[in-house]
């Protein structure tokens, strides 16, 4: 799970893309994603991927650390690529480039924008209940990861894991997950009481006042628009 690593880049990055407004980064991501979905031309798609790699460079995100996440969708696109490659190998390549490009777009957005800022953007058009679930999920995820690593450590120390004894291990793992859920349930009840005390009325206030758009915001949105126009307009190399 790479959520913690992604979170680290998003929160600790200090590049100009990190400093840009969340809305402008979201607009750029939507425009780049639309370009990738619309385009059927390998050269244009490779162009979009190049733009994305350039943006990673500007954002100072070590692509070699998180780039493998973009290969994950490429792996799942192989099946479709093989089917399409029967008509032409370029078509197969188009499918795989689309997969990698779309994944890189989302990676750029989440490695340069903290999740809380993204949720604040979601809150502008999403029901508050959904945004609250996003926030709770995100918070609970890290708490659960910590609890799981503690439980695994104690199971190993107490001899709860025995190689090749599948049934025994299953029982241990299920009991571990059960304990985890019970502990989490109690934690959630505590959280509910804390939220009640703090005046929670079914909506967590995370709406962030949008700041003024700067040069970098306009540049990013213009770049997205140029890429989209470049993909849509008919031209040949």
């Amino acid at each position: 799970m790479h959520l913690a690593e992604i979170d680290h880049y998003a929160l600790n990055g200090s590049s100009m893309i990190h400093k840009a407004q969340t809305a402008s980064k979201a607009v750029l991501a939507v425009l780049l994603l639309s370009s990738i979905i619309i385009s059927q031309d390998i050269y244009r798609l490779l162009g979009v991927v190049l733009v994305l790699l350039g943006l990673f460079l500007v954002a100072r995100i070590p692509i070699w650390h998180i780039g493998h996440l973009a290969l994950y969708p490429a792996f799942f696109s192989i099946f479709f690529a093989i089917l399409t490659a029967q008509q032409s190998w370029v078509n197969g390549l188009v499918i795989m480039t689309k997969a990698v490009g779309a994944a890189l777009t989302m990676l750029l957005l989440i490695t340069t924008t903290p999740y809380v800022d993204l949720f604040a953007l979601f809150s502008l058009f999403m029901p508050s209940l959904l945004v609250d679930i996003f926030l709770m999920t995100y918070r609970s995820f890290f708490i659960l990861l910590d609890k799981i690593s503690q439980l695994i450590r104690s199971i190993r120390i107490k001899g709860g894991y025995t190689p090749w004894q599948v049934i025994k291990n299953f029982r241990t793992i299920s009991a571990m997950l059960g304990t985890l859920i019970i502990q989490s349930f109690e934690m959630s009840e505590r959280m509910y009481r804390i939220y009640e005390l703090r005046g929670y009325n079914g909506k967590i206030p995370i709406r962030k006042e949008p700041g003024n758009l700067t040069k970098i915001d306009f540049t990013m949105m213009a770049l997205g628009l140029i890429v989209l126009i470049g993909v849509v307009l008919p031209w040949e190399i």
Partner: protein
Amino acid sequence: MSHIHIPDGILPFYLWVPAYLITFFIIFLVIKRMDKEQVKRVLPFTGIAAALMLIAMSVPLVIVPVHLSLAVLTGILIGPKMAFLVVFVVSVILATFGHGGITIVGINTLVIGSEVLVGSTLFRFLGKKHLTTGVIISVVVAVLVSMTMTIGIIGGAVGFEEVLPHTPHSHDENNVGNHNQETHQEREHIDEVVEQVNYLVFSGWMAVILILVVGIALEAVISLLIVRFFSKVKPDLLDTIHGFVQS
């Protein structure tokens, strides 16, 4: 288990746009019909159920090349309405780091949402009398329903003959036109791909079927053990959600 991992730009827009619209419509209905007080109470646990589902769906099982979803378990623990919202949230988070495209979120929500709905509804009827049978039947039927939906969707995009098990060279060879020749070539290609799938001592379709059977069995067993543990330690939760007390 039925989470679709297809990246963006592969499925046609007439599949993913309506799926998004239907998902948003269901979300709108779910939120509209929810009791606000009940929502406030279960919201913190909903986040935990979502995080658990997120972890289960991110970690591939070592013994079979699939991952759990714990969708039915989530439906049993927090009810189908909240679980549907959780499925949407989990699908969005997974899509942001390439676990299925962002355009596939609607389809994934509907597929896994159907698993949640079928599983928790069956559990409501069957789990009251016999917990073990109730959980196993709920999980198996729900996963089969969602898998059928998955095959239907992928089949709709690339052709049903490409996703369903078939016997090679079984069609009428006297009626071979250009289209049939192309289909024949595609089938041979798929068979080549499937032949490369290996599991234990099996290969080809046998291996594919075995992987699915083991995957469904693992999902059912893990869900059952957790629900049983829960019914012993915290029976009031199942009672509140499903309106019955475990014996």
